[in-house]
């Protein structure tokens, strides 16, 4: 492309945005709102994913050992588990320790244990941690097969429940993002349609004198991209602000909550929003122009 053509395209784009400034303003605003909500869901879903992952990684496998296993056999079993694939740590909780913990948990209701006398019905057990959360299931299944192991449990229910919720949020988020992307597309393509309409005479003359489709298309394409980009910038700035405020609030009250750190997460989100805005902008103007250029 020639320099003078580049100049022409930029000049035409700026002119057109100025001429339809209120329309441009309105569409940038709407695009910004859509992209903001879109970004919120993106952030929410990503954070939930992370939360699930971190909860999963904290999940322990409780391995209950049969009563007939001897002290020595217990040591061997511990070593065997520790040497298995993907195991991070193995900690023995013997009967006494288990009872101690149980007492603690009962607090002032310890009298309930009086009936037991000196009997300790609790089994020996191991607390096993895995290196990666997705290894929990396989590790638990393998441990269950070992001789002397009665059963191996982990927080299946909690994790699976959480999975369900995330899946739901993700699904809902995706659907909403899709709808919002469509809405954004609609808004931009309508704005461009108006611009094209305002300049239909010019475009007709351009065609008569032999301008190529791409030459005609560029200023409109650029206009769509600029609208999408500006909308994206506004949305990204708002998202960054909101995320910081929320992050501070959460650290103050729920320090354990594993919120994704701002850096570089927010940069990625910003980039995604901008790319998304520009892409939708380009697509929107392409749609509006298609009918016009084909005519």
């Amino acid at each position, binding site marked *: 492309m020639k320099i003078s053509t580049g100049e022409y395209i930029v000049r035409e784009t700026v002119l057109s945005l100025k001429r339809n400034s209120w329309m441009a303003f309105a569409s940038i605003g709407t695009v910004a709102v859509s992209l903001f909500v879109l970004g919120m869901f993106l952030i929410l879903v990503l954070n939930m994913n992370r939360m699930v992952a971190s909860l999963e990684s904290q999940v322990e496998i409780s391995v209950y050992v049969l009563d007939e296993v001897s002290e020595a056999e217990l040591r061997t079993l511990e070593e065997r588990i520790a040497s298995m694939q993907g195991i991070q740590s193995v900690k023995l909780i013997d009967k006494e320790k288990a009872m101690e913990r149980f007492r603690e948990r009962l607090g002032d209701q310890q009298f309930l244990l009086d009936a037991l006398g000196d009997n300790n019905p609790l089994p020996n057990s191991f607390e096993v941690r895995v290196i990666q959360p997705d290894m929990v299931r396989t590790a638990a299944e393998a441990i269950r097969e070992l001789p002397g192991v009665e059963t191996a449990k982990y927080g299946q229910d909690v994790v699976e429940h959480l999975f369900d919720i995330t899946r739901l949020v993700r699904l809902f988020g995706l659907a909403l993002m899709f709808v919002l992307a469509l809405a954004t597309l609609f808004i931009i393509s309508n704005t461009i349609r108006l611009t094209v309409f305002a300049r239909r005479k*010019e475009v007709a*003359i351009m065609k008569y*004198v*032999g*301008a*190529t*489709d791409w030459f005609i298309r560029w200023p409109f394409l650029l206009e769509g991209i600029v609208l999408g980009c500006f909308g994206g910038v506004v949305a990204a700035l708002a998202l960054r602000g909101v995320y910081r405020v929320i992050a501070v609030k959460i650290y103050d009250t729920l320090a354990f909550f594993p919120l994704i750190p701002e850096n570089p997460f927010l940069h990625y989100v910003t980039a995604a929003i901008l790319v998304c805005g520009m892409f939708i902008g380009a697509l929107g103007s392409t749609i509006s122009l298609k009918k016009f250029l084909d005519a």
Partner: protein
Amino acid sequence: MIDMKDISKVYENGAMALDHVNVHIDKGEFVFIVGASGAGKSTFIRMLFREVLPSAGSLIVNGQDVIHMDRSDVPYLRRGLGVIFQDYRLLPDKTVTENVAFAMQVIEAPRRKIQHSVNAVLDIVGLRDKYKCFPSQLSGGEQQRVAIARAIVNHPALVIADEPTGNLDPDTSWDIMDIFKRINADGTTIVMATHDKGIVDSMKRRVIAIEDGHIVRDEAQGVYGYED
């Protein structure tokens, strides 16, 4: 320059605008297309720059196969042609100079060349001193001269005009015809659809008469031949 064989045009609504038309026009000719309103003149003209695609037949314009060409080649066909309409079709927010230069800008001509060519064609149509005016500040004849300047600024081999004097009074029409004569004298082929009996009769050029989509007459030094 133009080779039209068995060309027919049926519009989507079923209207048969041209019916097996055969025309050959050589380089450098000056041809009038005459006929009553609705005869098919505009359809004929608009096929030449592929604004209307023929339904059947073959059409070669300026060495290019108009019917079988790629969509993407249409701009290049049009760069070899200059098109003029009855209603001028100028851009109201551009000056005379800008309107003419526009035709060069959009085909990415170098800037220095634009300046030079625009001045040259404004001389040809006699509007050098009005270069700063907007179309609304010009008479109909002057506006049409701007349109002609725009049509010829890229040195087309063929100029196509659809009733260019249709909105002009006789004196002004003659000014326009003088310009066409001069352009033609430089070797540019001219095809002009018109209603104007006076002009056709006194120019004594080739006349192709269309009636209901058929060519009914094709004479080398013809006359209008109708009373309307």
